[in-house]
């Protein structure tokens, strides 16, 4: 028999450690659904507000406590040659070193190499620094350098860094501290490629546990990894170079941005990556600096509507980039110079300017090209990959609508988005428009080649002039000639745009009050550049 609705009374034995038996009558409702559902409703709200409640900061504020950085995704491996995701580099970038590096201003400087030269068009000779040892005691020498190069280009080695080693044919030992890197054909970008090729110790890197027990030559050595929670690194007392000042570092995995921010506010963590501009006011301190990241909306120039360059110029004119930078990015971005390069980089064209915001001219050009009524397109955008990417896409869609182009924003998971980008422009299923950021960590005009040549893996444009220039520029080691050729490429890419050129983006880091950081031009997080302040 169903009991009538009511209250079932029960007694629950309470914890009695602090005195005699205390029996506490608790009326346990046979909860009506209303209550249950309301509770579930609150739970949904709590998922959103949850981070606010997780403020169990357990650290005492002493000067010796480690510096805590947070990342939102746990790296799959810390083998620096295997992957290139930003979050794993926060750890591995401090453990491993490369032959060449960039200084704070972006200039190419020696690191584990002392000097380098091209001995012939396909051979580069590096003289190595002496007296460098890995954290496990293995010495660093030419044999190790050659091994490291050959390891990453080995076909049997699984790496997502393939695009960084294109054109490297191998390496050979000349003497104990001289190594030669060979290229297949002339490869002018070899020196910059060496800034993203980490040196690994032959003995340790052949062990299976190398992925979670990395060993490098860098200023920090690996201490341990608590899965799903944190990784620890500490100062390398035998470091060959200038010693960093911060002794111990914890890289904590906090999958939620709000939690990260609140932990920063609570003084639990010291460095948080990629804040929203709006969140700056909540961080004790922050650094925001222009990164070599250029946002754009790629055209599929093979689509009938966008074949005419006038249409693509019109779409560039239709978007108010100043306003985008000022409002949505709160000034933490600026219109780029209609190229994926900044002043000082190889190939930067100083004569180019952002396309002005001129919707009237845009409408006129569309009419001239035969689309006075505009047309409909789909604008593809990845979810949660780029800072405010979704918002920017919706903003651009609205701007295009004002000149008659109906752009529908379609969101994709990252993998689906990447696959979409690789469908050739003339095949069914290829995108119309695609939002993305082009990162140029090489500071070099060659980095974009996959996006603009006829056979480029991500390219949706085919202009023989560009192909010819890119091939010629890649076929010479004369930097001035390369510079001029890439400048011409960008001149052409402004007359025959491959994308809507949007912004050069800032990276924003939130810092605790005790951290001082003179950060670099690229997005590397080098703890050696940080100081503690009282």
């Amino acid at each position, binding site marked *: 028999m169903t009991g009538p609705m009511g209250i079932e009374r029960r007694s629950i034995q309470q914890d009695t450690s602090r005195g005699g038996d205390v029996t506490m009558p608790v009326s346990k409702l046979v909860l009506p659904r209303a209550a249950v*559902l309301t509770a*579930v409703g609150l739970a*949904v709200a709590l998922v959103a*507000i949850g981070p606010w409640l997780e403020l169990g900061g357990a650290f005492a504020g002493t000067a010796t406590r480690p510096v805590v950085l947070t990342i939102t995704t746990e790296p799959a491996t810390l083998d620096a040659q295997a992957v290139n995701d930003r979050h794993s580099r926060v750890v591995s970038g401090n453990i491993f070193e490369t032959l060449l590096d960039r200084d704070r201003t972006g200039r190419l400087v020696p690191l584990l190499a002392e000097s380098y030269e091209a001995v012939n068009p396909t051979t580069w000779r590096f003289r190595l620094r002496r007296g460098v040892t890995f954290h496990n005691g293995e010495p660093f020498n030419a044999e190790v350098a050659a091994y490291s190069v050959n390891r990453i280009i080995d076909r049997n080695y699984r790496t997502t860094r393939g695009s960084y080693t294109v054109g490297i044919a191998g390496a050979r030992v000349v003497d104990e501290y001289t190594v030669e890197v060979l290229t297949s054909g002339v490869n002018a970008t070899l020196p910059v490629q060496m800034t993203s090729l980490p040196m690994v110790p032959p003995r340790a890197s052949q062990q299976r546990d190398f992925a979670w027990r990395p060993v490098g030559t860098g200023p920090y050595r690996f201490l341990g990894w608590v899965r799903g929670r944190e990784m620890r690194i500490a100062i390398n007392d035998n470091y060959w170079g200038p010693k960093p000042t911060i002794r111990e570092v914890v890289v904590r995995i906090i999958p939620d941005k709000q939690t990260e921010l609140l932990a920063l506010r609570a003084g639990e963590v010291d460095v948080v990556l990629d804040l929203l501009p*709006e969140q700056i*006011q909540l961080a004790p301190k922050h650094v925001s600096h222009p990164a070599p990241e250029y946002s754009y909306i790629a055209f599929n120039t093979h689509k009938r509507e966008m074949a005419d360059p006038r249409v693509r110029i019109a779409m560039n004119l239709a978007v108010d980039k100043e306003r985008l930078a000022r409002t*949505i990015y709160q000034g933490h971005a600026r219109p780029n110079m209609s190229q994926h390069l900044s002043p000082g980089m190889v190939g930067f064209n100083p004569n180019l300017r952002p396309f002005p915001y001129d919707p009237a001219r845009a409408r006129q050009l569309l009419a001239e090209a035969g689309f006075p009524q505009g047309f409909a397109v789909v604008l593809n955008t990845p979810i949660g990959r780029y800072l405010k990417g979704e918002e920017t896409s*919706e*903003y651009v869609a609205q701007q295009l609508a004002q000149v008659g182009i109906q752009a529908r924003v379609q969101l994709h998971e990252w993998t689906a988005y990447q696959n979409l980008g690789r469908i050739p422009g003339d095949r069914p299923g290829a995108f119309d428009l695609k939002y993305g950021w082009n990162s140029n960590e090489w500071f070099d005009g060659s980095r974009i080649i996959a996006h603009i040549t006829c056979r480029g893996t991500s390219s949706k444009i085919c202009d023989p002039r560009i192909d010819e220039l890119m091939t010629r520029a890649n076929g010479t080691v004369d930097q001035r000639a390369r510079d001029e050729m890439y400048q011409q490429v960008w001149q052409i890419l402004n007359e025959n745009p491959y994308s809507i050129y949007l912004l050069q983006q800032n990276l924003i880091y939130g810092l605790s009050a005790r951290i001082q950081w003179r950060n670099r031009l690229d997005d590397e997080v080098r703890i050696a550049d940080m100081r503690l302040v009282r």
Partner: protein
Amino acid sequence: MLDARLGRNEDIEEARALARQATLSRAGDLFWPAVIVALVLLALTGDALAPYAPTAQDVGARLLPPFATSSRGFHLLGTDPLGRDLLSTMIAGTRLSLFIGVTATFIGLVIGVGLGMAAGYYGGSVDRLVMRLAEAQTAMPMFLVAILFLVVLGPSVFNVIILLPALVWPAFARLVRAETLRLRETLYVEAAVATGCTGPQVLWSHILPNVAPRVAVLTVIEVGHVMLAEAGLSFLGIGVQPPDVTWGLLIARGRPYLAVAWWLVTMPGVLLGLAVLAFNMLARRFEVASGSAA
């Protein structure tokens, strides 16, 4: 039996109290139905009532707090990161939230009532099959299963509508089976069978009308339940996708800004809570009114 019933004074007291409440507070009676009527009206005539077009951006007036005024006018609930009026987008979201809630519940109802009547009336292996199915499903964390399916099938309004009934049909099946078991023994059903009615005929013209009132009560509750589930899926990014908008999606969209613009999450959250509560309060009123407090 009778003694047992008389012995439980509290229950009788409570029933009386409820009855008193029901007669005394007419205003209270009208509140929750009024909320639902208002929501339905919003869903049906939203475009006319919304102060602005829900997709109209104005990045010059982004993240305005409630009661702020932009160059376009007054924003009762503030604006979002693209300067869209929050009240207008919430009204636009009402239509889809409510539509998914009602449609998915109705599909669950049809499945649940059909299987429940069959199980209760035919008994035997049909009963065992249906009830084991319902139990198996109750044992599984259906929300996780729904997530799995949506990740595989791809998120869309259609997929959400065909998956959410899976969450609610067992409740209907159990209720209807129990009722059918009782009704099967009644004289009029026996009479119908004796005069040569087939099983489906009996179920359709004698059992169904008699379970209908209780099913109606459950339906009202489940609409709230389903709306909540939809909000959860959309919040996780695997439910409804932009440019469509529901309350759950609005909550998800506002989340990165929680620390700087509380209204983006709070306002749709409150509306969702209010709607779910309204459906449940209404169902309770029905129960009290029909004297079938469960």
